[in-house]
């Protein structure tokens, strides 16, 4: 394990931890009664979940007419929220898969929680298309199953159907990847537990023993799943962008959409990881595992992807002008200076200008700035989807059909409600499962623990020891 590590690398596990302390620190939150803070947060999340349940009931009972969609604007808050949540759901697999392939050790501190977040975000995203079909009890029609209507098949040429396959595959594969990582850690909790908890965690851990052969296969499996998830995660948001890009609406019908959407998804996903991690590390006292080093790495990703998104915004404007195509030019004129100009300003400020603060190392390592920025990015990315979807539809080819969009309370309730659903799931997750991948952190301890020759001081100590 004594791999060669550059002395300028910052430690990823601080506090001079031993293997046992790692187990203790990460398992203990699942073993004690949660604190008041957790209960307050949980009560608030449950309340929002109640709002969600009521809004879903209203939507299903009275139909989509309870939303403010009209003949001009057929997609608005629903699809905005769907794309927003799917985007957030991209960071988990990016961290666990792509960073695994790139051998980035800092992923071990955050991958577990980020993957959990991914799964919960995709669950939230899924609510919107399901509700938007109107008759949710017939939603199984979207799957190509042998039926008595012909059989009449679904349209495999439609990006909306590709979306069904992409999102359901993504959810399934993310769940498998996440759970396979959790199995050895559930075994760790099992071996510390007594009575009924031991039985429950044994069931969850599938009877894991830690045999060397099992570990070998487990690592092989993780690596191949990472290899498969990497193109998968890129394909999912690409296909989401096809929902727009393959239509013939000016402002949507552009080839820049797939990379632009994927960069935006990574951007918003990392922002949500930051929001959650900053709270989690504080509440569960995991500052030694989710360090400033981790936050700085993620802030760098946010800076890069935010800037990519910014370049995409400007490219769109330039190409619209350069194309000489009046409808395209109008679509972008309308985005910047039309009736929804405020959401364009919100998007530009939150997504492009504000992340530039992360050029300064001091800011990248500042917890408060990072937290505020992560909220900014989440808001900005919501505006981006709203700009693309509602603004574009509001001004179509016939000025007599032009319209404006304001949501009803049902739509606001659904949006706020999915935030409740998301946090309820996440808070429950922090109680029952280790939020940091125990085995993976242990496996990097010797190369990235602060007591093992790290930083300039560590290197000097080592030199002395050698002499």
């Amino acid at each position, binding site marked *: *394990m*004594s791999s060669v590590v550059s002395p300028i690398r910052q430690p990823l596990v601080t506090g001079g931890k*031993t*293997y*046992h302390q790692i*187990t203790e620190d990460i398992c203990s939150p699942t073993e004690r009664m949660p604190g008041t803070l957790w209960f307050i947060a949980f009560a608030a999340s449950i309340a929002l979940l109640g709002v969600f349940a009521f809004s879903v009931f209203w939507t299903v009972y009275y139909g989509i007419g309870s939303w403010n969609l009209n003949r001009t604007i057929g997609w608005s808050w629903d699809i905005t929220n769907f794309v927003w949540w799917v985007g957030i759901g991209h960071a988990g697999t990016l961290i666990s898969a792509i960073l695994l392939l790139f051998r980035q050790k800092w992923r071990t501190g955050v991958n577990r929680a980020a993957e959990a977040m991914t799964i919960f975000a995709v669950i939230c995203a899924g609510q919107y298309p399901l509700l938007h079909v109107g008759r949710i009890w017939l939603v199984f029609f979207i799957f*190509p199953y042998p039926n008595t209507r*012909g*059989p*009449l*098949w679904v*349209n*495999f*040429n*439609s990006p909306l159907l*590709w979306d069904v*396959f*992409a999102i359901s*595959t993504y959810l*399934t*594969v993310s769940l498998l*990847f996440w759970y*396979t990582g959790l*199995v*050895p850690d559930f*075994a*760790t909790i*099992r*071996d*510390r537990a007594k009575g009924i908890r031991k039985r429950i965690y044994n*069931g*969850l851990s*599938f*009877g*894991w*023993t*830690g*045999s*060397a*052969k*099992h*570990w*070998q*296969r*487990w690592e*092989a*499996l993780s690596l*191949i*799943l990472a290899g*498969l*998830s990497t*193109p*998968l995660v890129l*394909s999912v948001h690409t296909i989401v962008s*096809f929902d727009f890009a393959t239509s013939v609406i000016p402002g949507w019908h552009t080839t820049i959409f797939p990379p632009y959407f994927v960069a935006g998804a990574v951007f918003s996903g990392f922002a949500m990881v930051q929001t959650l991690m900053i709270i989690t590390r504080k509440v569960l006292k995991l500052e030694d595992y989710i360090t400033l080093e981790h936050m700085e790495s993620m802030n760098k990703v946010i800076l890069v992807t935010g800037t990519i998104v910014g370049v995409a915004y400007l490219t769109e404007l330039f190409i619209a002008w350069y194309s000489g195509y009046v409808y395209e030019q109008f679509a972008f004129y309308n985005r910047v200076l039309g009736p929804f100009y405020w959401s364009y300003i919100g998007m530009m400020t939150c997504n492009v200008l504000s992340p530039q603060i992360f050029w300064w190392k001091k800011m990248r390592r500042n917890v408060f700035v990072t937290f505020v920025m992560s909220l900014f990015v989440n808001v900005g990315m919501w505006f981006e989807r709203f700009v693309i979807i509602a603004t574009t539809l509001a001004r179509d080819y016939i000025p007599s059909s032009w319209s404006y969009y304001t949501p009803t309370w049902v739509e606001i309730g659904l949006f706020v409600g999915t935030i409740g659903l998301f946090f309820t799931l996440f808070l429950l997750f922090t109680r029952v499962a280790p939020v940091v991948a*125990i*085995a*993976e952190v242990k*496996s990097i301890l*010797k190369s990235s623990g602060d007591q093992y020759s790290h930083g300039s001081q560590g290197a000097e100590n080592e030199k002395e020891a050698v002499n």
Partner: protein
Amino acid sequence: MENQNKSVLFGLYNDEEVLLSAIEKANDQHLEIMEVFTPFPVHGIDELLGFTESRLHIVGFIFGAIGAAFAFLFMTWVFTSDWPIIFGGKPYFSAPAFIPITFELTVLFASIAMVVTFYAICGLWPGKVNPTLDDRITDDKFCIAFDADAHSKEELNAIKLFFSETLAEEVHTKDI
């Protein structure tokens, strides 16, 4: 698993590097290690224990290929022979439009098949109770286990000597 009512002699180590050198020494002394248990994947252990490379990727490839063929051929059959419909003036066999779903099903088939195979060949499933030698193996102890029934008394003494020479922290015998 078949190892019911088996007597196991095992030593616990505190560090993976000590464990690795102990395994090396056991190999030199031609001691037949039954199994090694660790709290996390220890690199370099596979070669020492003579493990061949995992063949899970073959499962992934086969099922990925099945998924790809199934998706592509199914869509082709639906749109060219079962219920041909013209969408947007494109040909019935519009292969580029089949690619996204073909890709998704390739990944889906390969992933599910590999995960199921992994748990099946490891003998792990929900509710399965595997006997554990020591509760600290999933925490911070590294364990080398020998089958005590398969060895004579002298051989067992040699193994105990091996444990003390290789700085095992604890040595126990347990019936599982």
